[in-house]
Structures are given as structure tokens and as C-alpha cells.
């Protein structure tokens, strides 16, 4: 179980991690600034195993991989959204951060709700209700399962 941090539609990667931080030498030095403009308490409150739940077009804008990377570094278990912008989606899979499309979840849950995700079953459970998720294409699930794209370079 993890807690939900809820965001709206068209959350761009500048909001996830602003430009002035992305050139910092390491992800660890950036992660304390995640979602700073939208939720200044996010980075201090999020716990390993928590979830980000968003509406349409999550992660639009800049291709900065720092965006999914800071969320992963903070222990975010998965991002569940109605839809994702493609570069964020691809980057997240490449670094091994699960990104789950679920059309019905966002409108029916609140920030702070406890949530459970089963990627194998393709469902999330919140407040005693189950919501079906779209499963990843096999190819992308394979990348996620091996822990990200780089793992294949080290085989």
C-alpha cells in the first residue's frame, strides 16, 4: 500500500523538476525540488512506495529524463494517469519507473488515499474499489521487467 499524491492535467516536466535544477551534477541533488511549483511539500512528504496519480497528458514538454528520475529516486512506486506525453512515458519505462494508464482512477480518488497496484493483474485498488488499467505492450513490459533499458547493455 502507498499514499496517493494527486495532480491535474497537462503537468509538464518543468513542474516535475524545474530547469534551474536539471543541470545539477546528480539526481540526488535535484530530487528535493520535485514538484516544487505545484506542491512544495511533495519531496519532503513522499515515502517509498507512494503513488503519483494524474489526469491527461502527464509529463508533457521537455525531454528531460530528470523528471521520471527524481520521482524514482524519491521512491515513487508508479505514476498512474489518464494519459502520458510520449517522451516522459518512454523515459520512465527506460529507467524502470512503472507508468500505468488508468482512465477511471483520477476522478474517483483523493490525495492521501491508500492505494495498491498489481501490474500483473492490471488493476489498482483504492478505498475497497478496483480500477482496471491498460497493460503495457509486451516489448515495453519486457524493458520494465529487466529494470530498464540499460540492463540489456550490461548482459
Amino acid at each position, binding site marked *: 500500500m502507498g499514499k496517493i499524491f494527486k495532480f491535474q492535467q*497537462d503537468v*509538464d516536466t*518543468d*513542474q516535475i523538476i*524545474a*530547469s*534551474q535544477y*536539471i*543541470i*545539477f*551534477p*546528480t*539526481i540526488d541533488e535535484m530530487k528535493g525540488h520535485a514538484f*516544487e*511549483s*505545484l506542491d512544495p511539500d511533495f519531496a519532503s512528504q513522499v515515502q517509498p512506495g507512494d503513488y503519483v496519480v494524474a489526469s*491527461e*497528458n502527464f509529463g*508533457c*514538454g*521537455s*525531454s*528531460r*529524463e*530528470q523528471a*521520471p*528520475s527524481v520521482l524514482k529516486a524519491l521512491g515513487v512506486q508508479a505514476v498512474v494517469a489518464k*494519459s502520458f*506525453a*510520449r*517522451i516522459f512515458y*518512454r*523515459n520512465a519505462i*527506460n*529507467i524502470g519507473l512503472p507508468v500505468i494508464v488508468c482512465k477511471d482512477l483520477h476522478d474517483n480518488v483523493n490525495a492521501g488515499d491508500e492505494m495498491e497496484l498489481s501490474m500483473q493483474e492490471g488493476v489498482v485498488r483504492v478505498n475497497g474499489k478496483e480500477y482496471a488499467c491498460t497493460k503495457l*505492450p509486451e*516489448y515495453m513490459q519486457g524493458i520494465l521487467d529487466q529494470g*530498464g*533499458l*540499460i540492463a*540489456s*547493455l*550490461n548482459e
Partner: protein
Amino acid sequence: MGMTMAEKIIAAAAGVASVKPGDIHTVELDRLMSNDGTTHLTIDMYNKLKNPRIADVNKLVWIVDHNVPCDSVKTAASHKKMRDFAKEHGIQFYEGEGVCHQVMMERHVTSGELIFGADSHTCAYGAVGAFGTGVGCTDYLYAMVTGKSWLLVPETLKFNLTGKLNDGVYARDFILSIIGMIGANGANYMAMEFGGEGLKTLNMSDRICICNLCVEAGAKTALMEVDEITLDYLKAHGREPKHSFKSDEDAVFAKVYDIDLSTIKPIVAKPHFVDSVADAKECAGTKIDEAFLGSCNNGRIEDLRVGAAIIRGKKVHPLVRFLVVPASAEVYRQALAEGIIDTFMEAGAIVMNPNCSVCWGSCQGVIGEGETLISTGTRNFKGRAGHKDSFVYLASAATVTASAVKGEIATADMV
């Protein structure tokens, strides 16, 4: 069944006869561009590989453009890491030569290529009929090591252009209109292809501006048919096309739009979304604190000429900072030769070295709490140009320059 331009480029790069949307293919990349926004992280990952190697160093182009000149000790460390690695491995390296996409267009990209760039606006390369797409540093590293990557074949939105833009209306107004029409995710996962008689009225600068901004509708890439204007541009820059693909007559498009360019009006995108568009005249009178003419979207010589013609003999409003930033050293030198830099400086503009500048809000000209910027930059997201509680309007070079003179949003006919 016929194929679209995007499908033909992917098929060629995958070494197969045909592809269709939804297929995933392993493709050979022609070129790999990376800039100082993420390369320091790519290098860290590279150094941790069990068997680090570069498949073909001649495909790599590294460009320091986001924070030039360097603005902090942390940035200096990231730049040094990039500079040293490029030197050690013999990677083509530019620093201070301009915004990455402009440098790529001037010196490297050609028609029919498949290019990964570690920057979302890589879709600009479609202006010469190249498939450019933005990637993160893990994708970049994988392609750097193997020379290959995987691509899901996108559906294509086709825009058939007719007519021509009226005087005082620019490519920026056109593409903002399109993004407003289809929305910030209207082309998500898709290619946007532009063709038709109207395309022939748009010069290469217009075409780069249009393709560059397609990612703001979510597009995976943008593509334009190769024609005489493309071939002239390539020839002038000493290059030949790799392929000159056109979509087949019976290619299948997800949707086709017919757009008469003469119907386009001056447009602004209002804070904080690129698809939040309005007629520029509706926003007239909005006070501004800063104006920015530059970026990979609108920092070419054609844009500077438009601005200079408007501001010649006039002054920047006393309450406004007007930043003029040529997109490349080549553009800067041409502007110097034409007396355009003098014109801007006489008017009181601040002319800066070629770089991304306030378009990405981490270097020059950032704006403070409650301030408003009108910009030819690529994005107007919350906090994009500085303080999280500041405001960015996007507009053409003409509207930005007119606003700098007036101290409030204005179109060129109002000054």
C-alpha cells in the same frame, strides 16, 4: 497499401520493405544530438557500464547551448565533464555556436535521416524532411552504445496547406493556431506532416519554426515534403539529401486537415499552456516587463529582420527589458553585417550571445515574481522563464518586438 513519410523513413532505417502504425521496429540511427541539459547524466551512466563503447562516434554531435556562458559552479562542473569526454572520444563538439537545433540545421541534418536528440524540439529537423525525435539520456546512451534503438511506428496527422500567410502574419502564428486547434496532446504519439501548395510559400526559417513547435501538440516528429526550397537550403549548406521521401497517394493518415494560410491571424499563447491561444489583439494592452526575441523557434536572421524593421527609429519602452538573442553565431554575424544588431542596440535592446537564454528560464533574463514576459521562445509553462508565479506569453517576432516598444502586448500595426 501506401506509406507516409514517417513510415518510409522508419522502414528504411529498419531495413524492411514496409511498416505500419503500432509496429515496433529496431532502427539504425543516422545522427545523435545531445546538449548540456542532460549530457552530464549520460556520461555518468556511460562510465558505469560494464563494457562502455561508442558504436560510431561520427554520428554524435554534442552542443553546449542551454547555459552559455556558464552561470554557476555546478553548471561549470557539468560543462567540464561534457567537454572533457567529447575531447577524449573525438566527438563533434560545439560551445557558444548557437542553440543546438539551429546548429544542427546549419551544419548536419539532411533529408530522410532518422535522428535522436536529447531535447524535445528535435522535431525541428522535419523542416528538411528528416525524422527527428526527442529522447531522454537513457535512450540516448543506448543509441550511442549500439547505434540503434526501438521505435513504435506513429500514426500521421496530415496538414494540407493552401494559400499564403497575409502580410504581418508569420509561421509562429500558424503553428500556434494549429496547436490551439488540436490541443497540447492532439498529436501525442503521432507524426505531423505538412504539405500542399501552401508549403511552397514558406521559407526554410518558417518551416523550422513550424516543425520545432510540433512537440507542443505532443508530436513524436514533424515532417515536411522535400521540394526546391529544401534542396536549395541543403545545397547552400553543402549537403545532399539522403532520401527525398513523399507520402504515397494511398498512404493512410489518422486525420487530414485542410488549412488555408490566408485565414491565419496574429496569435499569442497565454500563460501557462502553449495550446491556450487567443487572437493577439484580444490580449493587446496587457502590461509586460520583458520581451525576448530569440530561441531555436524564432531566432533566425529572418526573425531578426522582422523585429529590426519594426523597431528601427523607435525605442524600447522604458519599463521593458528587450532581450535579442540570435539563434546561432552564423545568424549573429549575418545580423551584424546587415546592421540589424546596431538597429536593436540603438533602440535600447540588450543583445546577447547565441544560446537558449530565457526560453528555458535558467540562465539569462529570468523574470521575477509577478512579472510578465512576451517571448518567441518555445514554452510558456508555469515558472518556465523564472519565478513560479510569473507569466509568459508566446508570440511571433513581430508581436514581441511591437510589444517591447509599446510596453504592453501589441501587434506590429499598433506601433
